[in-house]
């Protein structure tokens, strides 16, 4: 099936199998391997990307559903000032170890600080419940998001 979409700001046309997941499409056809796959059933959140600005599990979204949509993966935030803060805070708070869940975590973290800039720790944990990490025990991730939110709040007039 033919799809036309925007991937990290770049227009794309492709012919995809109906059963091809968006994650596989992004990784295999476009070579954007920053989107990681673990559970393939929408539980772990490693494959989280933005579709039209909202976090989506790309492992359970079919590539054909991205037709006429704006898709952004971890590789597509290099000019994004919010993501720059989130990334720095992740490093400073040791919010990553093996790096495998990190791209999905970053997309969710950016969504939290953007959508819920005043979220407290409990709310941050709740919002993170769709992203599993096996290395960090989450404390560093929660700290990083709290710190990023606070920095971004302070920048706003």
């Amino acid at each position, binding site marked *: 099936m033919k799809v036309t979409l925007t991937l990290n700001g770049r227009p794309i046309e492709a012919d995809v*199998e109906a*059963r*091809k997941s968006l994650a596989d499409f992004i*990784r*295999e056809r476009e*070579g*954007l*391997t*920053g*989107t*990681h*796959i*673990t*559970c*393939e*059933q929408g*539980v*772990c959140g*490693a494959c989280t990307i933005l579709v039209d600005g909202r976090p989506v599990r790309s492992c359970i979204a079919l590539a054909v559903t991205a037709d006429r949509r704006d898709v952004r*993966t*971890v*590789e597509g935030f*290099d000019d994004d000032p919010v993501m720059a803060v989130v*990334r720095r805070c*992740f*490093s*400073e708070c*040791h919010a*990553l*170890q*093996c*790096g*495998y*869940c*990190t*791209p999905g975590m*970053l997309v969710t973290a950016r969504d939290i600080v953007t959508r819920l800039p005043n979220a407290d*720790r409990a709310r*941050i*944990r*709740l919002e*993170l*419940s769709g*992203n*599993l*990490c*096996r*290395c*960090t*025990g*989450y*404390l*560093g*991730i*929660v700290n990083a998001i709290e710190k990023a939110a606070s920095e971004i709040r302070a920048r706003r007039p």
Partner: protein
Amino acid sequence: MASQGIGASVLRNEDERFLHGRGQYVADITLPGTWNAAFLRSPIAHARIKSITIPDDLKGRVFTAADMTGVGPIVGISSLPGFRVSEYPVLATKKVRFVGEPIAVALAPERAEAEDMIERIAVEFDPLPAAVECLDARKSGAPLVHEQWPDNIVHQAEFKLGPFDEMVKKAAHKVTRQFRISRQAVMPMESRAALAHYDARQDELVVYASHQTPHLLATGLAKFLGMSQRRVRVISPDVGGGFGLKIFVEAEALVAASLAMRLRRPIRWIEDNLEHLTADANCREHRHTLTAYADNQGKFLAFDLDVVVDGGAYSIYPWTSCVEAAQCAGILTAAYDLPSIHAKLATIATNKPPICVYRGVARPGVCFSGELIVDAVARAIGREPYQVRIDNMVRPEQMPYSTITNKLYDSGDYPESVRQAVKLADVDGIRARQRRGETDGTLIGVGFASYTEQTAHGTSVLSKWGVELVPGYEMATVRMTPDGDLVIEVGIHSHGQGMETTLAQIASEVLGVDPKRVKVKFGDTAMSPYSTGTYASRSIVMAGGAVATACRTLAKRIAVIGAHLLQAKADDVRIENAQVIGPKGQVDFSALGRAWYLHPEDLPPAVDRGGLTVTEGYRPNPDSGTFSYATHAAVVSVDPDLGTVKLIDYVVVEDCGRRVNPMVVDGQVLGGTVQGIGTALYEEALYGPNGEALTGTLADYMIPGATEVPDIKLAHMTTLSPWTEFGIKGMGEGGAIAPPAAIANAVNDALRVLGVEIAETPITPRRVLAALAAAGKL
């Protein structure tokens, strides 16, 4: 420049690529012409294979055991007396012995096509009764997993150490309990993966694998493929978590490698989550009967342990299935000054997947039963469990201390870790709150668990474990580049532990270089010294020691060249901040690199011919291991109507000697602790009565999420190891050891008013309610 060496929380060198999605895991690597592999796996736990029918159009794309002549079987051998050897075929031959055992493999450009092909293979089975519960499988008359064996006992042993009989007679209290630790999946976020291809130019098999021990994998691949190790190269790129899972030679990698050689085409296998949860190696499944003998004050006189470990269907190479149970006697004394033990250990074969050595190996199990029995003794004599712990612990003035089981504890103040945890968990506050009662009908409790963890144990220890690969001197190569930076090559691996930073910090400690100017390389057997790899919390001690040793040798050579350039005597110069400083001036390392590599006419006549590349080996003396330890405290709220357990507070007081990077240490402790919380409350790889796998998704096999864990409080003590470089102790696994015990003790403390105890993991609502019902309290 502020010190970036040992003790500084330097931000990690590896973060940049991960934060931009530029990590490179095996599944991210594509070679031209790659075919992806899908495995047909047994749906039956135990059966004879009557026939395998492959449609004609799939011939040449689907392979079975008949195509695997000369490959495997995988044989993991222990030299422990009485160990029974199993042959683990890379594809099932006449029988299948666990659900998920690979039977056939299909190859196609896309994984989905290969999975379609798998659907069209017909296998006729003759089902056999399955051995599922290890306690049943031990009994005579149980179905035999390996029909040529007389029973299912892989290995058993018995130890009586110290004046056991005398102590038993003396004891005023005898407390016995039975314990069960559930089977678990390791569940790293990146599953297992292998991509094999034949490099014709080098006449070499190259296997990209998600692995903690790439050199060991190369040795195993060569062994089971019948190839010279000269022709096998393993590359473990970024690895998305290991935790002890990725340290053995998997059947699927051997199949991929043999087919890559045969077809002269890259073959890639990426384990999916269903395969990981149902067909990959499991871990942890223990059954314990433990008796503690104590005097009137609760001083322990003897522990008597009977442990049965479910070893699954086959031994893995090289660790075997008996390495878990075989450790249980040695670690039974834990942090206590225990005069005697008796232990019976058995590893039982069952029709379940093989077992691996998950974070903490046997310790979470032994800590669970041991620390729960401590609390049971305390309850029997009416004392605070933490006081009983403190009274029985090895005291700092006894260090170094040799246990009755011949472990040599190097240093530490174990009782102090309990005292600090008591304060941080506010036991007095909890007791007052318990007296008041909760308004919502829940019960709260506080529990403790302490452990010691042997880390970085070397030749003298592992040679007695009967394993085939024994670590010796750990090697590191350190070389200066022509522009004065450093490259370090080591044979260990890092998959979250931050070794790209911490080893650079050790180099910084010795040579004053900025860790950002040190490239730490590992994971490629063609470009690193041989090592048994990363396991047993050994890498920072062993590879760190090797890096320090090599840097010191390099420092001597640097001093000679630097002094010559400064027209000074080598004795009159010192090395600081990547410079050689003499009485009248200084030169940067870049000048030394330039001299050695590009302008040797500037070198002194008596220069060391080894130049600015140094390879050194390191082994602590003694190499019996350095012991980290910790006390964990959990505060829980139990709902006696729903059986739910909520973690209200969690405290860790740990001591791993000198912390190279405190931030990284915190990360390891926290991550391990949350895995232990998973063991305690959530994780269970379930099998049905016929050995059918019941937990095939993350909705069935639950690992902790961000909402399941509180903000863990972490405190550190620093007692240096007397016999490692810088006093460092290993600590990667420790966090995972104590949580099941601490949390269960907290639950039992909460349920004490009802006279109910839990002795099984995970502590699910069903188990809590069952325990309450059994006591007539529901």
